[in-house]
């Protein structure tokens, strides 16, 4: 298998390497393959961008947006611990 064959990775592989890169370092061949693939594939370029956007959302979470009424839970906890405030 020649160098070009090694460099030509599929979209499936490219998306896999994109996710793996977040957690463990890629080796030189993998990095080169991903770089090369992203030069020629708009779908995967979009995937990388979207994956990064999702990552940021998952990291930051808009916790403020969740609507809760914590009163009942507060009472339950105080009751459970025997501290009635």
């Amino acid at each position, binding site marked *: 298998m020649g160098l070009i064959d090694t460099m030509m990775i599929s979209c499936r592989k490219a998306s896999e390497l994109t996710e793996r890169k977040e*957690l463990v370092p890629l080796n030189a061949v993998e990095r080169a393959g991903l770089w090369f693939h992203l030069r020629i594939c708009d779908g995967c*370029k979009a995937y990388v961008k979207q994956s990064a*956007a999702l990552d*940021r959302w998952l990291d930051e979470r808009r916790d403020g947006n969740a609507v809760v009424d914590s009163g009942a839970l507060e009472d339950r906890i105080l009751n459970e611990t025997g501290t009635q405030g």
Partner: protein
Amino acid sequence: MTTATRTSAQETLFSQWVREHTGDLQRFARNRVKDPDTADDLVQTAFVSAWKTMDRFEGNSSPRTWLFAILKHKLADHYRKAYREGIKVSGMEAVGDDPSGTLFVPSGHWHTDHRPQLVQDVFQEEDLNEKLDRALRKCMDALPERMRSVIEMKYLLSKDSAAIREALELSETNMWQQVHRAKLKLRACIEERLTKPQP
């Protein structure tokens, strides 16, 4: 009821914590666990732990930081259990768990229906608007519990791969395979929600 010997000053302090921080802890948990009752139970368990170990709280950190640290422990326990039970129920390589089959053609290239599209204003990097926020919540809830546990653990443990592997008892290969699958499924779900009208 949970018994622990506490001075009345401690009782007063504890009830202040409960009144002050329950809402934030509850929002945090409900955003990270599908079932709201389960999320609330985790918050309650965290407070009970805090009550029992209150003597050890030395005030080096704020009560809020301390309570959040306890809650994160409880969440990690929850994900660990959910992940293990998921394996028992579905088997390790359950069919339907791996979305690759529908998203890619056999040669490994994107299926035309699932190829990510560039320049979609709803998916812009800075523009995490309400619509996307809602889609993300729905799609996280739609993930199989086991898959969600892996992805939640990744962020809960700040992407520390060794810690994630240890917590879920996963091999390295298995860990990023799980993350990859979850991410593929999540992305596809969100694009679907954003581009097709929902019933």
